[in-house]
């Protein structure tokens, strides 16, 4: 694979990654959001795969296949279970409305660019130049966790956060130490399991997945 076509494909993929991240902030359908999370994880997998093929690093390719299995299949499938199959599958109440959300997402991207500029300047290779994408995905995920009320969306945002960390790792380093990455994966996986269990537990107890209503229970 030539440097030119690698960079071109890499950029395209990281662009797609950013696009799907942004689209999650836009969509209201919970199942639509899960589909976008899958697409986002597939873009992440391709990111790893491309880097692996380019660097001829078998471990990296293996890792990206693990990512494909866990992040594009496993986690979204588990999250989809947390969505009530009958009843409200839509995120209609948001702390920040949709139009403002997508504008904030744009601002976050610009902010991420400014934030990472000194970092990129340290080692200005073409690949590291796309670090802002990873950082902005990270920030968007945080933004979603803060502003969304449905537990399913929060889980999605959390998974997104995880994907963003991996994306940053792919962009920053040539090869990821497998152990570190798998460790992080497992941590998050555990967290997701706990949250899902918690979610279905809360659903069965309160018949509602709205955090605002849970707050009332405490009082």
């Amino acid at each position: 694979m030539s440097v030119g076509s690698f960079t071109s494909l890499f950029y395209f993929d990281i662009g797609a990654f950013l696009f799907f991240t942004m689209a999650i902030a836009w969509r209201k359908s919970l199942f639509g959001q899960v589909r976008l999370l899958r697409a986002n994880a597939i873009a992440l997998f391709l990111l790893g795969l491309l880097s692996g093929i380019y660097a001829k690093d078998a471990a990296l390719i293996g890792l990206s296949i693990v990512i494909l299995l866990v992040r594009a299949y496993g986690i979204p499938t588990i999250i989809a279970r947390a969505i009530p199959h009958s009843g409200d599958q839509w995120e209609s109440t948001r702390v920040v409305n949709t139009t403002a959300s997508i504008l904030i997402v744009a601002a976050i991207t610009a902010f991420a660019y400014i934030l990472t500029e000194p970092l990129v300047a340290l080692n200005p290779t073409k690949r590291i130049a796309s670090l802002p994408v990873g950082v902005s995905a990270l920030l968007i995920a945080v933004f979603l966790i803060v502003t969304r009320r449905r537990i399913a969306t929060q889980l999605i945002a959390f998974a997104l956060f995880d994907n963003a960390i991996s994306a940053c790792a792919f962009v920053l380093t040539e090869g990821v130490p497998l152990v570190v990455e798998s460790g992080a994966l497992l941590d998050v996986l555990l967290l997701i399991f706990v949250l899902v269990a918690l979610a279905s537990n809360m659903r069965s107890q309160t018949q509602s997945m709205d955090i605002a209503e849970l707050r009332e229970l405490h009082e």
Partner: protein
Amino acid sequence: MTNSINQQLHQITSGISVIRSSEATDSDSLLGRVAFYLNEGYRLSLVCAKPLPQTILVTYCLVGKNPDRRHEIQLEVKRERPELPSLAKISFSASRFEREMADLYGIIPLNHPLPKRLVRHGHWPEEWYPMISSQEKPKFESDRQVGYPFQEVAGSGIYEIPVGPIHAGMIEPGHFRFFALGETVIRLRIRLWFLHKGLEKLFVGKTPAEAITLAEKISGDTSFGHSLAMTMAIEDALGITVPTRVASARAILLEAERIYNHIGDIGALANDVGFSWGNAIALDLKEEMMRLNSSLTQSRLLRGTLGVGTVKISDHLDLIGIDRIASKFEELIEILTNHSMVRDRFHGTAILGVAQAKEMGCLGVVARASGIEVDARIDHPFMTIGPTASTLETGDVNSRFLQRVNEIRASVSYIRELARFLRVEEPIAQVSTPPRESGFSLVEGWRGTIAHRVEIKDGIITNAKIVDPSWFNWPSLPIAMTNTIVPDFPLVNKSFNLSYSGNDL
């Protein structure tokens, strides 16, 4: 097998019981009597007037459910000074019936809070009452001289949007006046009754068979519903009880009419949010249903099937065809409910609250979508086997859409349940009770409960009153439109889909 059907046949015919009562009262105690029955859980379903040589006889029909109770209160007013006390204080529906009577019969409701004309527009001559005066055509005045003042909403930035009475598309006449602030509707006024056809007077002097045919023309899309109501009112007067096969066939055709109209409405809702693909599928299904109607009764609109004590229907009901339509329908609903843009247009749009709907006396789909349990098939049945009842709570466009979906599903399984009774051979209808002067019927048409009341003397109809559910539902449309945006009106209007023709008799 035959045994069990016979057993059920017996149950169907024997289980129906209606408690009827009537009383005569004077103008002093009218308010008290009606208030008493309203408190007992009755609702005012119909008010009719009959001109007699010296007096005008006004009848208030109140109906109650569980058990099916029907009570008539009669009041005579003098012809030279026709006045009656207004019931506007206790019933909104009554206040509208009174305005209608004031226009058609010249009976003045005393202390009416809004004694304006309703049916007769400004250009009708002052002293000419369609139901009383001679057949001669009155001298109409020019509308420009009379004018029609709307209650104005003033304030900075508020503007008026007049729409109609002539609309783009195939719609009947109605004038809508929006008072909007930006795109938000502050108030909507609706002016109907542009085509007074004098239908109720046309019924006078007709034989029962003629009347049944004429009733098909009250509102074209409810041909069967209205003609069934007329048939049943006549049978009620003549004391005829119909055999099970006839009753079942009628129930099936009533559901068939409901299915094709509800499918059409669902398609129109999709079309009004610009989702023409959904409409294309729905139109296809509607056509299939109408062909099925045609194979059952030789008429796509189910016309010409009813007679006193009879119904003309083919023995073969194409249940496979109905199943095919039902499964295609489920596919359509799957598409519509999963479409996020369609959902966004439907949800939370034009909410009609349960309290408001109750106050207005709403009926049918509109009422049930707002959580009111009102369904003549359950409250005033003519068969002991009824459909599954369902209501929704929200009262927005989406629940009116979903209510139709649920009703189609219920209708399909109801038709399946009734189909076996079609094959039963039975004796023809018989006179079971002594004939009476008047007959009254309640039929759940696809829009809602239709009420007809007829009086028959020597086999000729002497008086008829028709109430389409739209009569009750029209006033609720402006209520639902308040604080809804102007470009959503066509969608909201379609979700109500009220009849102009059934309203303006």
